[in-house]
């Protein structure tokens, strides 16, 4: 199949990770919110982890896609 699953996984975690980092920055210092996560701004830190994972999936897949353009598309349905 012509779909490299690393691409949607990569995009999704990059997006979700970015969102969490952003939300973490916006809510930084909100003691009420972060009491649950033992007073750590876990949105920010875990968002960074997700972001890194997303990029780790995405970048090699995108680099590989650019190289052999012609052989990437096998004829559909065998």
């Amino acid at each position, binding site marked *: 199949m012509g779909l490299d699953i690393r691409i949607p996984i990569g995009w999704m975690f990059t997006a979700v990770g970015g969102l969490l980092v952003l939300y973490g920055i916006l*809510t930084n210092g909100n003691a009420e919110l972060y009491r649950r996560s033992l007073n750590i701004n876990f949105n920010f830190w875990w968002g960074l982890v997700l972001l890194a994972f997303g990029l780790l999936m995405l970048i090699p897949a995108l680099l590989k896609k650019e190289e052999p353009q012609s052989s990437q598309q096998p004829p559909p349905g065998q």
Partner: protein
Amino acid sequence: MEVIKLAWVDYLIILAYTIFVVGIGFALRKYMKSSAAFLLAGRSIPAWVTGLAFMAANLGALEVIGMAANGAKYGMLACHFYWVGAIPAMVFLAVFMMPFYYGSKARSVPEYLKMRFDERVRCLNSITFGVMTMLTSGISMHVLADLLRQLLGWNYNACLWLTSAIVLLYVFKGGLTSAIYTEVLQFFMIVLGFAPIVFLCLKDINGWAALKDTLAQVAQNPQVVNVGSQPFPTNAWTSCWATTGHPANNPMGIDWFGVLFGLGFVLAFGYWCTNFLVVQRALAAKDMYAARMTPIIAAVPKMIFPLLVILPGMVAVALAFKCADYDIPKKPLEGRAMQKVLAALNEMVEKQVPPTEAFEYISKEAGMAMSQEKVTALIREHAAHPLPENELRARLQAAITENDYNNVMLSMLKRYLPNGLLGLGLTALLASFMSGMAGNVTAFNTIWTYDIYQAYIAKNKSDEHYLWMGRMITVIGVLISIACAYIAKQYGNIMDLVQLVFGFVNAPLFATFLLGMFWARATGDGAFYGLLGGTLTSALFHGLTLSQNNAPGIKGAWLAKLFGSTPVHVFQSEMAQNFWLACFAFTVCFLLTVVISLFTKRTKTEEELRGLVYSLTPRITDHGRPWYARPATAGAVLLIICLILNIIFW
């Protein structure tokens, strides 16, 4: 359980996930040109993808919700479902069985049975499997919808239909390929979504050593948090084997033989080696090598999964024991049960029944354990001057002491995750249910289309027709699952019920496969009657035995009840009953198949059995691959690590 509020960021995360899974289905739509592409993924997927999908398809409701529940209920003993009940069987599947499944070009497990034995065995297997898949799927959907309702206050029916609609959409569009690809995405979602809970709860309890200390106190006083009535040895919650000498010494109520033979051999091999739900993922691999590596790759994350799903359950028990601000969630008293209890309460007050008697009657009507102190206080106050119904309801709910273990994971999610991560955790939960359901639906549609529809109902139709049928049955399968979800609404502990179903259907099945693959003399008659006999043995065993604290009926001994006699044997726990049921069913199926085979004529020639039976199939050699990339050596390494884990947590 009080309802929690989501913020915009939580909804955005759930939305992003939904867009991506549905998007994968739409991206793959253009490849779905034949029934083989739709139902078998065209045998074109790399090993790491099928491996993670293999893992994720099994990661349904049972894993995340059920295993956290087991972690709370049984502690480290729940690890047996991984280190005894999964890894050895997965390695066996990869090394010994995959060459036959993949090499025979069978499109499904029942089709392999037809090639090896005959039409009858296939028919029996495909029908029982079909029923089982739909039941499992329904159970997991029910659990999801019910939890979302309790946690978020969402509507039960809306949750059920909406999540099903999303699964239906991407499976309908992209078939098995789409199910497999989304399962990989879901796998990462589940791991990364639940990991923060593990980190935070372990930090909260001050690490593993402190957890062990607290759990030792729990084991000594289990009645404090309602996880048992008698004291256990101090290591009951924190060791895998040390307390399995006698069933009364551990909270699972099992002995080492039941674990080793019942779970580790019969149930595990029956599940991992013959269940088309997981085998189908390996059959979609691009070549024989990728197919054999699929279970091996899946076994790596499987081995460390207890950390993600069992540990939070164990921490929950420790927290409930130690902290004033946390308690294991209690069973909800609602709907008809609440009406019954309210009526009972009013009746008792009216008739001025003595407190102890009144309490017994009320808790019997509720069908669960209640606090005597709270109920009698309530009766006294209500008799003195009638309380408003709202207050009665709240106080009756507060008097329930019966733990709702299925809610443990969500209570941890609620306790530790702030908005943002909360959305991520919920998405992980949704992902686990969707991957399980998509797995069931794709296995069901293939079995139906190839093993039932094409085999018995409409032979020799065009491939377009079967593709059309595959799509139609996908829709119907989802609808049947929804119906099963409503059925499942009536039953209590999900894991036990599913174990029971596995026991009935899967336990004897492995005997059939074992003999079929390794003994050329096994005949179709032997396999068919052996399997039938094994399944009947399951039913008979279940009908005659019972487990402690259960009334005869759905939990067993229904046959004994029918004839008005007492159960033949009463086990310490349902788990023990299930393990022993599996042992009996397997043994009967094995012996019957051997005996009948010896007395009946072979119908398949040696030539026909080539590629289907071990002794008649050329060995696959892996020369030229490094040792770690050979299924056999990689499998051996996994088994050794598994053994080490068992010893560390002995």
